[in-house]
């Protein structure tokens, strides 16, 4: 899908400084990375991709739809994975949380059960279907959060630091999962090595998009900025 930012700036009400300034970018690649320091604006950038944040000036369009007016239609096609799975999991048990994503989509109970079972099996959570979600390990929780998103088969998956709270093994697991997805992915991360085979990496610094290029060049630029 084509993602287009034109003249995007954003200020949160009540904060003295904007969090994002004059971002212009067109994204069509399958694997897009976003890196930058804390507070550089990358998280707000990610939230603009599904209209969770609507910019105070400029426009964001996803596949031709403006996030300002068509947020709901966009969110149906854009999945969003948060850093902390605990704030994303809304239902008490694992299977219920995945099934929650499929409500309001006009599916029968049997169809929902079938798709939930399939996605849980695909991500190694089949044995946990009826377990309370809060008793899963951190890695399993993030897999559950991802399963709950992927069960809706979004066209674009936006991930805001999905591995920041995870250990190396679970980080690897998420990275492998992401690598195997047919979807377009925008990954915001501090784990720079996850981006090695990405198509394009954006670097944010101090509310601006300061570099845009191949992974090696972008990571190099970011390292220099932080030196």
């Amino acid at each position, binding site marked *: 899908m084509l993602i287009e930012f034109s003249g995007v700036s954003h200020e949160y009400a009540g904060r003295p400084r904007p969090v994002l300034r004059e971002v212009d970018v067109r994204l069509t690649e399958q694997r897009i990375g976003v890196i930058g320091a804390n507070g550089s604006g990358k998280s707000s950038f990610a939230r603009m991709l599904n209209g969770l944040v609507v910019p105070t000036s400029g426009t964001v369009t996803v596949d031709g739809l403006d996030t300002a007016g068509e947020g709901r239609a966009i*969110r149906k096609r854009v999945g969003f994975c*948060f850093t902390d799975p605990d*704030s994303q999991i*809304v239902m008490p048990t694992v299977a219920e949380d995945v099934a929650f994503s499929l409500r309001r989509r006009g599916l029968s109970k049997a169809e929902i059960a079938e798709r939930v079972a399939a996605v849980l099996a695909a991500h190694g959570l089949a044995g946990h279907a009826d377990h309370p979600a809060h008793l899963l390990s951190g890695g399993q929780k993030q897999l559950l959060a991802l399963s709950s998103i992927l069960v809706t088969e979004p066209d674009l998956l936006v991930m805001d630091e999905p591995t920041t709270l995870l250990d190396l093994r679970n980080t690897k697991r998420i990275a492998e999962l992401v690598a195997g997805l047919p979807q377009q992915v925008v990954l915001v991360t501090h784990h720079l090595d996850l981006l090695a085979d990405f198509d394009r990496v954006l670097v944010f610094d101090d509310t601006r998009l300061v570099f845009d290029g191949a992974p090696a060049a972008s990571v190099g630029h970011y390292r220099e900025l932080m030196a």
Partner: protein
Amino acid sequence: MNSPVGLYRPGRSLLHRQRAGVKLATLVVAGAGSILVRRPVETAVAIGVVLLGYAVAQVPPRVVWASFRPLLWVLVPLTVFQVLVAGWQRAAVIVGVIVALVLLANLVTLTTRTSDLIDVVVWLCRPLRRVGVEPERVGLMLNLAIRSVPMMVELADQVREAQLARGHGVSARAVAVPLVVGALRRADELGDALAARGFDD
């Protein structure tokens, strides 16, 4: 961590297969009927029937005890009080009825998925649509409330640990402020997560 909710134990017993509505209705009828109990023998029978239900549902005694234990904080003083004020027979009836009902309610939660129970509540709320109540939302609210309990317990633990790690004793205010701030932030994130998953109205 052992939480007081989300206690559903997957199984295929006769009780697991009963419809959630039937189980809830039984609970309501038992609750209403409990005022008719007058003699200790009747309470003993009631408790016996409920325990039989646990056997049918194949709940290990360990689990029954674990869910019963916190009740002792209330039941022991209550028993003492009732024995002194109303005599042992009255005490046996009152305390026995409470025990039977709590065990029955617990049996319902142990054998029924939360979402099935909530579906019953949503179904019951349908007539309220006429006065502008959206039953689906009532259900969502209940789900979120249940989900929030373990989340809040965890948050409280974190706050307490943070206080101890900084060398403070546990003071009410020092716990309350970060707890409220943390809860509000969680609520904010949960709102974002709901919107991201298509529940944005």
